[in-house]
């Protein structure tokens, strides 16, 4: 997996902006579509590798679900849990399709996570 330092820096900047703007975020991870971490900001770093792999699987299943249901390409998944939620967003960078995964506490506003998540995904798509 070869990504330039400038791309990693750009991705890191996009994630930092997201984390600062939203708050109550446990982890924000940018992964390749086959489940490798590009950049991560996480309270628990041990989560990052597994989260990257899970994001890869869930996004791939999301793509297939979208196709099977004839509702178009995958954009995002929102998973609500008892103590928080996860938002996964697709970012189509020319070098690789990327997945931005955000794990937030239940105090966070899901709409705000999606809004700033989409903004970060757009930045990621342009990163080079």
């Amino acid at each position, binding site marked *: 997996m070869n990504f330039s330092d400038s791309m990693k820096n750009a991705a890191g900047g996009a994630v930092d902006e997201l984390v600062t703007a939203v708050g109550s975020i446990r982890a924000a991870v940018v992964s*390749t579509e*086959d489940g490798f971490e590009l950049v991560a900001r996480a309270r628990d770093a041990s989560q990052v*590798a597994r989260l990257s*792999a899970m994001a*890869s*699987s869930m996004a791939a299943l999301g793509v*297939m679900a979208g196709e099977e249901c004839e509702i178009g390409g995958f954009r995002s998944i929102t998973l609500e849990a008892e103590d928080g939620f996860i938002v996964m967003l697709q970012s189509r960078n020319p070098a690789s399709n990327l997945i931005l995964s955000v794990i937030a506490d239940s105090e966070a506003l899901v709409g705000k996570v999606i809004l700033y998540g989409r903004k970060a995904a757009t930045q990621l798509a342009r990163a080079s």
Partner: protein
Amino acid sequence: MEYKIVFAGVTGAGKTTAIGSVSEIDPVRTDVRNHDASLAKEFTTVGLDYGEVALEGSDRLRLYGTPGQTRFEFMWRIVSQGALGLVLLADNSQDGALDAIDTYIDGFSELIDRTACVIGVGRSESHSEPGLDDYADRLAERGVICPVVPVDVRRRSDVLMLLDLLLTQLEMKTGTTDELF
């Protein structure tokens, strides 16, 4: 009646190909571009594969393929739920093919203990070692007794043979399945 069968094994062994060889529906695939330089393949499965094979009457097999990489081990547990048996594919052309079997024997131990298993060894015509007996011995060391056969997963007949062997194993173990093909 519907029977759920899981395909597992090392990346590149041909799980996606095997399901595609026998499925009577367009297989569901979750292949994405591979970024792992250690794997000589352009695409890799990250979620699951899905295909179906019709049996006698209204019965059918539902075939689920799993990602080979251990970082997707969570998918192994998810896909194993409710499964009837395991088709484990080996790739003799890869270094450490025999040792790789251990990873999947461990990862699918609950499914193997509960149901039945069959091992298909691919590319054994071009790579004769390890031999089928080596696989059988390794499995026996792990307390797993199951058929080990050479396969070319591109051939529908070979994959159907694996499924037939698996169901025969299951019938011997539980006495619950009749002749299905």
